[in-house]
């Protein structure tokens, strides 16, 4: 039994790797045999020298450092504020009702639409990019936390009260936070991916980073550089998501 599940747990990532290799193989082959003109799509093998050039010039490392700064700051600020606001609105019906109109007005506005104000208020630097990323992450976490609090088994509040934890602190720490944790974690994870998309948007208007470097490259039709930064972003997302899942699985071990 254990052997069986052990083998199966390896099969999925292995197949995933096979699919990835196959994609790059097909891509390389279709450019090599001329199915796709190399001017429209660079072959993977052509990317390596271009990437080495970027690394030697220090552009690649610099872009990663800048984007990671925007990403982590925006993610942290947006997640913490969004999670807290969602928890509060989920737990306090009066506040929820009071803010329902405000939420409806602000919610549909995408982070990108805030770019002019980001420039005006924070300037063309880290703060501006952070602001745009934080906004897009905020709503994801707001709704995740809100929903998580709303779906708590109400009976658990009575359990807490029956065992001496009926006050505000008891309800919050013995019930609301642990019960809402899976929902909060799901929101954080969605935000983790969404924030990378916003990084590009936030840097498009000139704040240095991966997005800005991609814009420069595409204006020069340097498609190999664009692809390099696309893959870089995918790699960074995979790493952050993996690191997050390690933490999440430790915290939510009870879910099995």
């Amino acid at each position, binding site marked *: 039994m254990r052997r069986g599940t052990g083998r199966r747990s390896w099969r999925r990532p292995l197949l995933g790797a096979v699919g990835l290799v196959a994609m790059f193989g097909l891509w390389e082959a279709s450019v090599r045999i001329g199915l796709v003109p190399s001017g429209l799509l660079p072959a993977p093998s052509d990317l390596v020298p271009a990437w080495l050039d970027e690394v030697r010039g220090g552009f690649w490392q610099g872009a990663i450092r800048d984007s990671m700064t925007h990403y982590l700051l925006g993610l942290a600020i947006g997640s913490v504020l969004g999670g807290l606001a969602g928890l509060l609105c989920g737990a306090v019906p009066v506040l929820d009702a009071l803010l329902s109109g405000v939420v409806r007005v602000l919610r549909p506005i995408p982070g990108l639409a805030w770019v002019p104000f980001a420039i005006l208020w924070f300037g063309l630097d880290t703060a501006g990019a952070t602001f745009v990323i934080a906004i897009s992450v905020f709503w994801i976490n707001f709704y995740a936390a809100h929903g998580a609090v709303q779906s708590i*088994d109400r009976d*658990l509040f009575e*359990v807490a009260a029956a065992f001496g*934890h009926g006050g505000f602190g008891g309800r919050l720490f013995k019930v609301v936070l642990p019960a809402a944790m899976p929902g909060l974690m799901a929101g954080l994870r969605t935000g983790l991916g969404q924030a990378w998309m916003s990084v590009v948007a936030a840097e498009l208007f000139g704040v240095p980073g991966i997005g800005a470097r991609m814009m420069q490259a595409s204006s020069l039709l340097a498609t190999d550089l664009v692809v390099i930064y696309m893959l870089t972003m995918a790699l960074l997302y995979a790493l952050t998501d993996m690191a997050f899942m390690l933490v999440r699985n430790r915290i939510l*071990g009870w879910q*099995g």
Partner: protein
Amino acid sequence: MVRLRNVGLSHDGARSFILRGVDLEIRRGEFVAVLGPSGAGKSTLLRIAMKLIAPTEGEVTLAPAATAQGRPAGLVFQDAKLMPWRTVQRNVELGLEGLGLGRAARHARALDALRLVGLAEQAGRWPRQLSGGQRQRVGVARALTVEPALLLMDEPFGALDAITRAGLQEELLRIWAQTRKTVLFVTHDIDEAMILADRIIVLAGHPASVRGDLAVGPRPRDRGAPAMQILAERLRALIAGEPDPAGAGYWRASEI
């Protein structure tokens, strides 16, 4: 141990009552069953007795905790209601948190209670890994570990299969004989009340009130004994609101 005087509960400002004119006294060491049809307000009465719900009228006197580091009452819920994010051990410790006990002392006391219900081996597991019967035993341990003066049980075995249920009834009697707790046990099952209790209080009507208060014969109980069958008939009549087949309209425990 607990005394209710002319207790009534209304949710609409005394226009209609769920319970009214309930007089009840439970003495130290007694095992009392509250028997009545579903929806008669038995669970509500239990929560009033432990002061989790304040009555609209009348008064409740509950003996204080037996020890400085205990609670006046311990409640066992209908479907265990364990917190899924806590291990078995930490679920049992819930009521001990906030009593000024150190970590080691909480741990030792919870483990003692788990030993009493035969689940010490499962202390490190998650609730989802237990069977329904095991979960309910954890619920019993959680209530016992606060060393309550009064142990309240709200149809604790109602959701279990017949075999598990019979086993747990036996185990409860063993624990009761061992700890000599005062027990107030809510059930809608006449058989269960007769097997477990010294005294059966029938709660029925709209608003619900005490229809009868009957003593049950010596232990161990024999379901087939003629006296038990007569008692079962009387209980059935009292619940249904029919005249008492044994004669008088309202029977006190002392009259049997």
